[in-house]
């Protein structure tokens, strides 16, 4: 029974990785946000399973926090932002999506290789998933740096936070509750500030393309 449950953690990790790739290949902002909410749900599932197996009660609270924040509140805020900015459809990428996929495979291989020796010293039931968490982290980072518009970059940032949280859960059964609460609050405040920024960028340049920010002077 216990073996099956630890396999369940692996399954949730795999779902996270699939969703990370789906986000990387996604061309529509609105689907991207749905995928982000689903990834949050996978994190909630994995955290709950780890909490159940290890009887770490604080993990239940962090799972609940993730559920409220990353599955409901933040996607809701993002939906509102894109509604107001009217940027529901296309995502501009800096280089084409198949190339990103190939780079993504490279990143996954790198992450798996790096995490194998680390996982060997770990005693947790979910040690195998550290590599997957690292891969998700790198993929979200890739997504963040290859998008031209502000909204997908913010989603990339949030997905990175998801992966970090998952890495913490799988490597050490989660961070102390205070730290987790602090991070959750940071993310929430971060998303509000970024929302304001997006409106400002749009106001200044009449577009959400952050390449405009590279010009420091008005010409």
């Amino acid at each position: 029974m216990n073996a099956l449950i630890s396999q369940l953690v692996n399954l949730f990790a795999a779902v996270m990785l699939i969703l990370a790739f789906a986000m990387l290949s996604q061309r529509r902002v609105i689907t991207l946000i749905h995928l982000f909410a689903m990834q949050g749900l996978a994190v909630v599932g994995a955290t709950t399973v780890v909490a159940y197996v290890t009887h770490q009660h604080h993990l239940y609270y962090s799972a609940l926090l993730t559920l409220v924040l990353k599955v409901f509140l933040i996607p809701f805020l993002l939906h509102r932002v894109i509604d107001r900015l009217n940027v529901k459809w296309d995502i501009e990428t800096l280089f084409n999506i198949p190339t990103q996929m190939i780079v993504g495979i490279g990143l996954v291989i790198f992450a798996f290789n790096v995490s194998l020796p680390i996982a060997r010293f770990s005693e947790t039931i979910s040690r195998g998933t550290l590599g997957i968490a690292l891969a998700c982290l790198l993929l979200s980072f890739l997504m963040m740096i290859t998008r031209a518009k502000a909204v997908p970059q913010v989603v990339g940032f949030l997905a990175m936070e998801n992966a970090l949280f998952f890495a913490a859960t799988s490597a050490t059964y989660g961070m102390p509750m205070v730290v987790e609460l602090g991070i959750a609050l940071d993310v929430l405040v971060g998303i509000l500030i970024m929302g304001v920024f997006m409106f400002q960028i749009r106001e200044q340049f009449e577009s959400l393309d952050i390449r405009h920010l590279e010009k420091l002077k008005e010409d």
Partner: protein
Amino acid sequence: MTLSGLLSQCLALVLALVLAPLLTGWVNQWRAWLQNRSGPGLLQPYRMLHKLFNKESVLAESASPFFRAAPYIIFGCMTLACAIIPMLSTDLPLSIAADAIALVGLFAVARVFLSLAAMDIGTSFGSLGARREMLVGFLAEPALLAVLFTASLIANSTALTTIVTSLAHREFAIYPSLAFAGIAFTFVSFAENARVPVDNPATHLELTMIHEALILEYSGRHLALIEWAASLKLFAYSCIGLAIFFPWGIAEAEAPLALIFAIPALVSKLAIGGFLLALIETLSAKMRIFRVPEFLASAFMLAVIGMLVHLLLGV
């Protein structure tokens, strides 16, 4: 070769030949229902085959003997493919003939012959369809191989019967790598069977058709054989998918009586699978031909990651 092996082999072959058009009819019927049409009926593919076999076969003047031989070769390839896939029982004497890699090769042979036959006449539609078919094929093939390799890594064998035996009859376990392989396999089977996101089987619109452009010059019994082979291909892909991802209910070699339960299990699994296929086809829009490489690249990538995840997690 034992008697029960021979029996299950013949049964599987006959069942594939008989049920394949029915599966196509079932999918088409559900497609029609989901689109609020009344549909042609489940038996339409059989009526179609009957009509075509009774019709005269018209050949173009410039057709070479190759053009006439191709339908028989394609039909033969698909029949053999159906014979080596463990759909009812893992006791298949013919399965020694080809493992998972050779199975992909069989599909490739059929594809090459179909494309060459389409180019043989020299019409522009034929060569257009052949090029598109080869484009889709050369991208789908590595993805299919990678999917089969993931299953082979789990079972430590590339023989399909061994894969099914080890997946179905050992203690239940969750394989995250198979989740990746499953999604990749779904993508590949849509592309290979000319279903909606890649190609629309019900259209003759010259800008988009792939499969229909290939067989435009065929008529009569040749067309019947090719249509039957296309049904067999859909059937074979469904059975590969069921055998790897939902192997429960397939009879073991030592238990010939389990065949009795294997047939309803297979039929109900195929019925559900056919419904899901029609549902996905109805929900998705056909993509531009230049998006197909991207679609298949993601399939390949998912399959490769499935293998990597297997190596990382060790399950």
